[in-house]
């Protein structure tokens, strides 16, 4: 399994990331990608931007372990993870997770698995800025549950 991980302030190009995932790769019939972006919430004071902090010495290591766990559970051939840090504005991209695999079920499940664990194990923290000021984002209970669900489900 090839794993590529990039943590950077730079934005990423989804088309290019996809191309790198499939280039010179004829054994894989399925590619699944996730892109997370800064979204406006429903409030009257929507999020204008985020400030994304991380733990530089740990971040890549944590993501690598998550990708490797996915690789032990599903036959995934390629994983690409790109996570931005620093200042990110409304509508901008935050995270890209792309996987390629022989078959679609393993591609879907491993991509979702990586995102679910990234949400609870990768050392990133978001601070939201609205017209009212700044606020650290709280971890959502459903994110904890999502990762726990993988522990009880049987593997492929």
């Amino acid at each position: 399994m090839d794993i590529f991980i990039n943590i950077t302030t730079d934005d990423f190009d989804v088309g290019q990331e996809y191309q790198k995932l499939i280039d010179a790769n004829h054994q894989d019939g399925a590619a699944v990608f996730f892109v997370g972006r800064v979204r406006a919430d429903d409030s009257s004071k929507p999020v204008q931007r985020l400030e994304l902090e991380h733990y530089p010495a740990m971040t890549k290591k944590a993501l690598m372990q998550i990708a490797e766990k996915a690789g032990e559970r599903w036959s995934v051939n390629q994983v690409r993870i790109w996570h931005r840090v620093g200042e990110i504005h409304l509508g901008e991209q935050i995270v890209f997770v792309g996987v390629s695999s022989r078959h679609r079920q393993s591609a879907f499940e491993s991509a979702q698995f990586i995102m679910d664990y990234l949400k609870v194990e990768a050392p990133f923290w978001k601070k939201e800025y609205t017209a009212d000021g700044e606020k650290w984002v709280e971890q959502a209970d459903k994110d904890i549950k999502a990762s726990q669900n993988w522990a009880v489900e049987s593997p492929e």
Partner: protein
Amino acid sequence: MIKILFFASLREQLGVAQIEFDLASPASIDEIKSKLIEKGDVWKKAFSRPLLVAVNQEIVEQDTLVSPSSEIAFFPPVTGG
């Protein structure tokens, strides 16, 4: 000497990103926390909420033993992605 790092809202609460700490023999995370809490009310309050802890960049349980020269990090639940 162990290095202790703080991130995100915890770092802001404490007003410090990193401290160093003398540790003669291995101690548990809980023991290290107790020592930190002695530093004052701000510290006591900051450590009263659920935090994650990593030793040498790996998330560990609270009863893990830490050897001198480790890098410890305390931080609130993560919110990336």
